[in-house]
């Protein structure tokens, strides 16, 4: 081995050892050690994340297996293994490489180690607080700021709008795509545009029925559009309240007071606020200093993982070049997408050991 190669091998071995130490800490918190295949079936990830995953994951091809992806995370394979085993509550710990395409010119590596934990079958603020506190403790030696968010609060705000179920479902579907979410909200705030009548006459003079999306699909959507056109616009006060909610970025105490003010116009978010307050109480009881924590309503809204409740990240605000050193959150909806309506609630998080030396105090 040449000098440089030997140095790299040593550095990699040291990182692997650091990842294994983190994994051991997760095992000490009650998790079973698990492994995951590096080659993952592409269709599962495509169905979950959509075509956008192709720009993020490395896609490869095998004449027999078909399309496969180098695992972009452990969450999906670990969740699938848990659901396939049909187990109830369980915790898993892992450490290993994940692979993600980076933009040209980005100095972020396309292959890096992650150590993480996934917790199934535990719902509620207590489990959220416990997982967060575990990360806070492991990361205490490092100079990091913690940011939390709560997609559940945004979802509750959408649910609480005075509008049709179809409009709420459309907004919920685009919670993770801010541009489309904004466009929908704009549209729902105005009277709807006129559309063709929802019957066979609309198809007169048009081309023949081709493809698997059939005439009755078209008519069903026309009927849905007609129903939508009859719906009154979302009240301006509610739109303003939702906008205000998306702006909240404060310490927990101030954030709670802001969202309680917002709840005057969106009373339906009150239970979600109570859960948020209970989670902060849980964090405080677990020894987390809330004054050093930021709550950001939109945190994690554009990440790939589609967390749908509590979300957290540990990062260096003065180092925008570094990705979060650790991140995690609740992904009950992803578990349901993989395992059906009866899937257990799920929460997890990962640490990137390679970043730790850069953030030493």
């Amino acid at each position: 081995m040449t000098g440089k190669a030997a140095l790299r091998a040593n550095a990699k071995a040291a990182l692997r050892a650091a990842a294994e130490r983190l994994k051991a800490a997760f095992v000490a918190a009650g998790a079973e050690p698990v492994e995951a295949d590096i080659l993952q079936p592409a269709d599962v990830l495509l169905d979950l994340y959509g075509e956008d995953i192709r720009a993020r994951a490395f896609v490869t091809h095998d004449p027999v297996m078909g399309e496969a992806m180098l695992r972009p995370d452990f969450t999906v394979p670990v969740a699938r293994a848990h659901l396939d085993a049909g187990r109830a509550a369980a915790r898993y710990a892992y450490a290993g490489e994940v692979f993600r395409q980076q933009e040209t010119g980005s100095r972020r590596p396309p292959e890096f180690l992650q150590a993480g934990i996934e917790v199934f079958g535990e719902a509620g603020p207590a489990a959220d607080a416990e997982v967060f506190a575990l990360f806070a403790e492991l990361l205490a030696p490092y100079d990091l700021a913690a940011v939390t968010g709560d997609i559940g609060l945004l979802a509750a705000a959408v649910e609480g709008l005075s509008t049709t179920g179809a409009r709420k479902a459309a907004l919920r579907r685009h919670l993770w795509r801010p541009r489309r979410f904004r466009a929908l909200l704009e549209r729902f705030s105005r009277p709807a545009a006129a559309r063709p009548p929802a019957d066979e006459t609309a198809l007169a003079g048009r081309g023949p029925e081709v493809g698997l999306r059939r005439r009755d699909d078209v008519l069903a959507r026309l009927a849905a559009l007609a129903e939508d056109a009859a719906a009154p616009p979302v009240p301006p006060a509610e739109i303003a309240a939702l906008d205000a909610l998306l702006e909240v970025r404060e310490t927990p105490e101030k954030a709670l007071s802001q969202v309680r003010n917002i709840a005057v116009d969106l009373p339906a978010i009150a239970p979600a606020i109570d859960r948020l307050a209970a989670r902060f109480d849980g964090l405080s009881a677990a020894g987390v200093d809330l004054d050093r924590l930021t709550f950001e309503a939109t945190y994690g809204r554009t990440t790939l993982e589609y967390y749908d409740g509590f979300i957290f990240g540990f990062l260096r605000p003065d180092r925008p070049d570094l990705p979060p050193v650790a991140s995690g959150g609740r992904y009950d909806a992803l578990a349901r997408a993989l395992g059906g309506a009866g899937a257990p609630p799920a929460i997890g998080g990962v640490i990137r050991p390679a970043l730790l030396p850069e953030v030493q105090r």
Partner: protein
Amino acid sequence: MTLKLGVPSKGRLMEKTFDWFGKRGVTLSRAGADREYAGVVEGIGGVDLVLLSAGEIPRELGAGRLHLGVTGRDMIEEKLAFWEDRVEPVAELGFGQADLVIAVPDFWVDVETLDDFDGAAAAFRARHGTRLRIATKYHRIVREFLRHAGVADYALVDSQGATEGTVKNEIAEAIADITTTGATLRDNHLRALTDGTILKSQAGLYRSRMAAWEGERETLAALVARLGV
């Protein structure tokens, strides 16, 4: 050192490229037999003509094995990630015009815009359990465009030719392909979305930022002066 100029090796794109250069005093032609892919350049010294498929020219420019190349904007954007870092457009050549569009069956009276398309995709997945398929060979450009527009619940299906027929053949529910007059779309009972034009393409002369530019700089200056671009 010679400047390597890549030009499409066959068809109308080759003929139009030869015409374009010819009108500007640079004669390009194929050497020897009609089937031999070697080229001759007359009217200027120090330029080597490389004949190859229009689809391969972006890759060769990106790798710096060509100094200059003629190909479609659609090919540049599809085949070269972060193309602006790797090639520079020198001139638009005024031929090979084509629009890359998203098209759906004409009888989809409920779908006129991307917003409709996204709504239809959601309803289709809810009803049939699968994502709405779009047949295309322009995977990267289409995916980028739809990501930017916030469209979800679609799948891209690879189609390297006769893409307009994929809907009738039930390989896809919609297509993303280049069209010039729209006649092929109409013949296949398809219609472009009103805001579904992804790219307005035409043939262009591109300069590689990745090639070694040493002695070739002077040749480039002379060629650019001769071509008047």
